[in-house]
C-alpha cells in the first residue's frame, strides 16, 4: 500500500484525538484521546520507517525504535495520569474537567 494511505489514516486518527481532547469533558476520555494521538504517531512512524527503508536508508529502523520509546513514555504517562485521575476522583467524586473550574473559587 502507498505510504499516503498511512499518512492520511494517521492524520485522521490524530485529528480525531485532538478534537476529542478539545471537545470532551471527561478526563478519562480526554486521556484516551491523547493516547489515540500517540498511537496515530506510532502508526505514522512505522509507515515512514518502511518508506525510508524502501528508499534505501539503512537506519530506517530507528523510527521503529522510536515507537518503542513512545510506548514506554506513554506508559509512564498513563501511570502518572491514572494516579492523578484516581486522586482527583477520590477527592471530588468526578472526573469531569468542568469541576476544576469550580475548584478555582
Amino acid at each position: 500500500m502507498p505510504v499516503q494511505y498511512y499518512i492520511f489514516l494517521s492524520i485522521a486518527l490524530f485529528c480525531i484525538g485532538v478534537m476529542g481532547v478539545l471537545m470532551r469533558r471527561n478526563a478519562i476520555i480526554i486521556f484516551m484521546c491523547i493516547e489515540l494521538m500517540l498511537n496515530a504517531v506510532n502508526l505514522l512512524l512505522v509507515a515512514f520507517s518502511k518508506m525510508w527503508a524502501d528508499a534505501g536508508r539503512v537506519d530506517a529502523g530507528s523510527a521503529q525504535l522510536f515507537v518503542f520509546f513512545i510506548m514506554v513514555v506513554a506508559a509512564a504517562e498513563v501511570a502518572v495520569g491514572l494516579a492523578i485521575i484516581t486522586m482527583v476522583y477520590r477527592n471530588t467524586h468526578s472526573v469531569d474537567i468542568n469541576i476544576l473550574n469550580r475548584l478555582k473559587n
Partner: protein
Amino acid sequence: MYTDTVFLSATTTPFSYFPIVLQLLAALGFVGITMLATHFLGPKRKTSDKLINFESGIEQRGNARQPVAIKYFLTAILFVLFDVEVIFFYPYAVNFKSLGWEGFVAVLMFVGFFLCGFIYIVKKGALKWED
C-alpha cells in the same frame, strides 16, 4: 546497528494474517449465532424479583459500582509500567546473539534499573496485600 532486525527484514506480508481474519470472522459468527439462538430458544418469564441483582438473598443496597480498594488501581498502574519494560526485552531477545556480551551488559544495566524500581515499590509497600 540495532536496526537490521528480524522485525525489519520480515518477509511475511500482511497476507499471512489473512487466515487470522478468517478465523476472527468464524469466531464472530459462532458467538453471534449462538447468542441469538439462545435468545430465541429459552423461555421468557420475567418477573421483577427475578431481574434484580442477586446478593445472597439480601436486599441490594446502594450502587455496586463503588470505588474498590486503591491496591487494585495500583496493581494496574504498576502493570502498565512493568509491562512496557518487558516489551523492551523482546527486540533484545530477538537480536541478542548478534549483540553479544556488550548488549548483555547493557541489558544487565537495564535489568538493574528495573530491579531498582521493583525493590522500591516493594519497600514502599505497594504490593502489600496483607493488611
